[in-house]
């Protein structure tokens, strides 16, 4: 199956990006063929709603899971609607995260943070 990880650089040895919505690239990795492809994240330059657009990109790759350190409410809503699971990534390289995921040692992301524009008022 395909999984996606937000990346700072086009290299498996480099670290996972701290931001999902504004990561410069996404690594789309196929756990069956063990092949990975880096794609640009065109949401990074968005004025707003970057998480939503980034999530749409992930959905369009056909991936079944996203590995990320953090995820906002809006992006989570998009991913949930597409039945994509969100896993809490670990500090370290993309490679490291993938092997940890393959071993089944990554947890589902439990803390979804409020979006940058908040969620309405009282």
């Amino acid at each position: 199956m395909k999984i996606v990880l937000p990346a700072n650089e086009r290299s498996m040895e480099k670290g996972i990006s701290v931001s999902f919505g504004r990561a410069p690239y996404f690594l789309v990795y196929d756990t069956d063929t063990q092949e990975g492809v880096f794609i640009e994240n065109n949401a990074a330059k968005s004025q707003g709603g970057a998480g939503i657009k980034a999530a749409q990109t992930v959905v369009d790759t056909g991936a079944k899971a996203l590995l990320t350190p953090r995820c906002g409410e809006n992006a989570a809503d998009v991913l949930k609607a597409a039945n994509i699971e969100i896993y809490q990534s670990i500090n370290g390289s993309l490679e490291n995260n993938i092997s940890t995921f393959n071993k089944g040692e990554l947890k589902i992301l439990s803390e979804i943070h409020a979006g940058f524009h908040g969620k309405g008022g009282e």
Partner: protein
Amino acid sequence: MRIAVLSGKGGTGKTLISVNLAAVSKEAIYIDCDVEEPNGHLFFKPENLAAEYISVKIPLVDNELCNGCRICAVFCQYNALAYINQKLLIFDDVCHSCGGCVLFCPEKALAEKEKNIGIVQSGTSGLVHVITGILDTGEASGVPIIKKLMQNAPAGQEDVFIDCPPGSDCIVMGSIKDADYCVLVAEPTLFGVHNLKMVHDLVRLFRKPHGAVLNKCLEGYDPAAQYCEDHGIRIIGRIPFDHDLGTLNSNALIAARENGKYREVFTSLLQKVREEVQDAAAIDFKR
């Protein structure tokens, strides 16, 4: 006359000055445009409160009519729409209410609903009509509230005092757009001067007659006074740093109502402002 009180920086004394000027005016309207952190109402403690909700239009989809063409999602500059698993998801909080998606949907599947983003509260305190804009926490833009607030400042008989937010962004612009005169408040610090420059640029861009009030003046070198002199900004008032005034202010008391000394200070400042407005009208700064 409509007077906007602004400063580039927070904490210089905008609210102190606009609240007290309104208080010494015969009948006045005080409008608090600092919708993120409104403070004027803490001083006036207005009564006879009435509130009006301010709302913006957000799209609403009829999933029966929607055929998943994604024209709306592609059009949206703010990424407020996503089409996932045969459903259109709409994200209220990033929507700018431009109406484009509704306009361009070929299936007419989108309509609009109202979403509240804040309130405009009005009340009275003595002879002052107090109007306060409050943006809900978490909402991105206060511009629609400013638009509503400024409808309460018609050119007419009453004096209107507009307490502007700090800075020089689009909300501040909306607050000064209809002003007859701008009072720039500055404090005698290096930080104050840098920010005074910003609002000076802003009022000149909008071709608004303006003058400066220096607040919290201390002994010694005053960089803000220097800036005014160097750039030809008329200094129309100087309020010395005053511990008692500070205490009254920190307790949200209106100095001009508490103490004759301060009533005098603000009455003469108001008089000076009136003179400036008359002069400016004579010269006709307006386009």
